[in-house]
């Protein structure tokens, strides 16, 4: 249909077609060029420079391989790589243990109060991992955490029950934040299979647990594996938890090692070389994941055609419900509650009592300290601008791509999705290498952070925008054009109003994570462009957990508000429609 109206498509046009294209330049062609340029700046530039500086000598810029020799020439640095991979694997395993029973319970069984599981998942999304860690330091500090104090008091033991400053502590913190990925993937997989096979097994006398293990689980295995890959990648690219827990525990990870290269003596070139495995692992695993999820090998996974019946699992439903609550408590309620209490305390070590109650932390953070005031304003300002920017670019590209207005539009789509395979911290190093030094000299400015945020969250925006655009039939715009309106009129009066919901969802989906982003910000902030996440990280080094908790609670409250707003205006599932 489109092809009949738009003269710009149709490959048969040949040479004369190209000529005509140049003569009748519609604004849309300029837009294409502009978008292409913008995406070069956002995506190609940083990665190009990242690779380039990794082969350059610091200072004079001549070609060298020394950066690679230095980055991989010490056992400690290699150890960090191994530690990170191990961390990713353990975290993924723990996430499976957390999330697969939950997903199975919600999708297949007659477990009551399924919203309970959803609440846990949502809670994990709301609390960023570095805040979960801070809450847990107060819970499970080896000597002072109330969990360990209680344990000692109960048992008279010398050793703590659980030391948060440990490898397992880091694994647990990341898993508590990342298990929703596996939950969503597994649930999506389970929702696609009909129950007929399970019923067949039941008729043949197989007990429920045996059927679930031997029939259901293998069917959703590709989905679980897809989730595992995402969790693995999230874990190895995370900065906050390794820095807050790993440095005191003396566990070196790739991201904290990168941070060290960005310290003194400053070795950005070595950092670039050292970031390569992170980039390569991510690209190849995402590729594997796509293969897994696109494989249509199972005839059973053919949409929702089959009959689905909830399994009656008897008393076990209560066990599963308790499990959902337990995971939620670990992920959200316990650390959240502890943080709220600490934020109202004079000294977190003193415990809860009237004499320890104070509003001073909030007063300091909100009204006295210029640092925190600035950081709060910056966080929302950067996130807002980045969300609008990413959305604008994504919408333009989605429009051009779905309406097939120009040739090679898919290149734009590809560039929009490319940051998905670039870990945030690697992207930040790329931005630093490309735009911090002269001639652009964006070092330490707000601009470099905003632009990096746009690039980081562009795939999310594009996913939302493209989905929204596909849902609008082009016939409506064509009607406008038949009646003599230009394309811009069609966009203004037809497309934009129809996309309102998409626009809003797209904004929030970037805005919320951008207000708390740490990995992409840590190398890019300057004196006047600090954000809350970085400030929290800086403040943990002075052990001022009460003030940190107060800022944490501000993040918590605002995030909850925006998520609520999203539910209200966009729909219940807007956070869960991850396009991973």
């Amino acid at each position, binding site marked *: 249909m489109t092809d009949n109206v738009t003269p710009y498509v149709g490959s048969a046009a040949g040479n004369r077609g190209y000529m005509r294209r140049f003569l009748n330049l519609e604004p849309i062609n300029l837009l294409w060029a502009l978008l292409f340029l913008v995406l070069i700046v956002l995506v190609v530039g940083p990665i190009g420079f990242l690779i380039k500086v990794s082969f350059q000598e610091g200072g004079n810029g001549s070609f060298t391989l020394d950066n690679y020799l230095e980055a991989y020439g010490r056992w400690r640095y290699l150890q960090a790589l191994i530690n990170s991979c191990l961390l990713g694997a353990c975290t993924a395993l723990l996430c499976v243990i957390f999330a697969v029973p939950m997903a199975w319970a919600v999708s297949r069984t007659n477990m009551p109060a399924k919203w309970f599981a959803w609440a846990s998942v949502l809670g994990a999304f709301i609390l960023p991992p570095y805040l979960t860690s801070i809450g847990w330091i107060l819970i499970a500090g080896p*000597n002072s955490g109330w969990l360990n104090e209680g344990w000692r008091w109960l048992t008279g033991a010398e050793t703590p029950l659980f030391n948060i400053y440990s490898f397992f502590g880091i694994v647990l913190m990341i898993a508590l934040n990342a298990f929703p990925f596996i939950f969503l993937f597994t649930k999506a997989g389970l929702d696609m299979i009909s129950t007929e096979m399970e019923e067949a097994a039941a008729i043949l006398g197989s007990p429920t647990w045996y059927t679930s293990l031997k029939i259901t689980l293998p069917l959703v295995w590709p989905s679980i594996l897809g989730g595992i890959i995402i969790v693995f990648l999230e874990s190895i690219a995370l900065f906050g938890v390794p820095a807050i827990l790993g440095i*005191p525990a003396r566990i070196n990870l790739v991201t904290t090692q990168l941070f060290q290269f960005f310290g003194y003596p*400053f070795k950005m070139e070595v950092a670039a070389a050292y970031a390569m495995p992170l980039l390569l692992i991510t690209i190849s695993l995402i590729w594997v994941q796509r293969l897994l999820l696109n494989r249509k090998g199972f005839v059973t996974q053919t949409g929702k055609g089959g009959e689905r019946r909830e399994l009656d699992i008897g008393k076990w439903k209560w066990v599963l419900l308790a499990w959902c609550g337990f995971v939620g408590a670990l992920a959200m309620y316990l650390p959240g509650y502890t943080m709220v209490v600490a934020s109202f305390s004079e000294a977190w070590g003193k415990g809860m009592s009237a004499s320890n109650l104070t509003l001073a932390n909030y007063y300091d953070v909100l009204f006295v300290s*210029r640092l925190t005031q600035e950081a709060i304003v910056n966080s929302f300002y950067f996130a807002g601008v980045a969300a609008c920017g990413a959305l604008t670019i994504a919408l333009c590209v989605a429009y051009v791509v779905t309406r097939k207005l120009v040739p090679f539009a898919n290149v734009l789509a590809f560039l929009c999705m490319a940051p998905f395979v670039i870990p945030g911290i690697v992207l930040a190093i790329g931005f630093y290498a490309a735009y911090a030094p002269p001639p652009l000299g964006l070092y330490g400015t707000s601009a470099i952070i905003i632009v990096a945020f746009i690039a980081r969250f562009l795939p999310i925006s594009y996913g939302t925008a493209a989905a929204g655009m596909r849902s609008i039939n082009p016939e409506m715009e064509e009607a406008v054009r038949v009646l003599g309106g230009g394309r811009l009129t069609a966009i203004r009066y037809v497309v934009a109003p129809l996309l309102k919901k998409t626009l809003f969802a797209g904004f929030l989906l970037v805005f919320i994570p951008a207000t708390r982003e740490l990995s992409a910000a840590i190398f890019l902030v300057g004196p006047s462009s600090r954000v809350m996440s970085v400030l929290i990280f*800086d403040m943990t*080094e002075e052990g001022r957990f009460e003030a940190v908790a107060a800022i944490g609670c501000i993040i918590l409250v605002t995030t909850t508000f925006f998520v609520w707003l999203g539910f209200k205006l966009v729909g219940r599932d807007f956070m869960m429609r991850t396009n991973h």
Partner: protein
Amino acid sequence: MHYTRLAAAVLGAFVATGASAQTSTDELYEKAKAEGEVTWYVAQFTTSIAEDIGQDFTNAYPGVNVNVIRATGQVVYSRLAQDLRNGVAQADVFSGSDQTHLISLKEEGNLLQFSPENGPKLRKPYLDFEPDGYWYTTSANPTVMAYNTDLVTAEEAPTNWTGLVDPKWKGKVAMSHPGFSGSTGSWAVLMRRLYGDEFFEQLEANDPLIGRSLSDPPNTLVAGERAIGIGTLATVTRLKNAGNPIEIIYPEDGAKLTLSGTAIPANAPHPNAAQLFVNYLLSERASDLMVTYGLQPMRPEVAPPPGAKAIDEINLASPTQDELINGVQPVIELWRRVFGA
């Protein structure tokens, strides 16, 4: 890179000749008001103290605001080094906690030579830290030990640094990381001289909790997370005076004292406000304020803080400048090798 440094050096020389003729404070204030602000890279004081000092400066000199950029010694220097490398001028005043940074900045021609009115009015031991006028002593904060009085009695408490590596404190020691904290770096240089590389191996075996800043361990002690640890005299004194269960240990083998200077980068965007601010840091008013935080006063007119010994009563041990220049980076490397991170 070389070009930038050269330019900075030339610029510095120009500004220096301009400023070396002592400008009166009033004149400086007028020019500073036109500049409106001063950006302070600081490691010597904790965030809240630095902000309070900045606020007090603005109260004293309305119209000149202070942007506080606080980080640990190594981190704040790395930031300044990145600024210089990128040819960006952001820092007006640099208060690091590792002397060697000041020395290399001076040698590379990146510092402004200046002579604030209050420069010659400091206490005696702080006067001749830098005879050429590239920086002035703004902090003399000894590194001491401390213990939590709820968990440890005065008799049990260790009396010198080797207590940190005594196996009886295994799992109960709070430390900070020389790779981040400047003062911890010079402390580690001293420990290496006194007790050799084995000291770090024994310390590692004691499983300490390692913060990034030297302000972290005392807070860890107050929270009851660890029983003994290191810290700056000022932080421990302040926490103690606020009624927290913490007591100072003056190690018999000598508290570590390294003076910390404040300098002005040659490319400071607000050089007049910067000079006014450094002059304020050296004033009686600033010393009065610092004492309330347990810090040592820079001025002889101001009495040392209560609850702590005065500097001249403390048995001190200090690494020399040469030891620091040649020792800090290697000891950080040693630390990372021994501790694995």
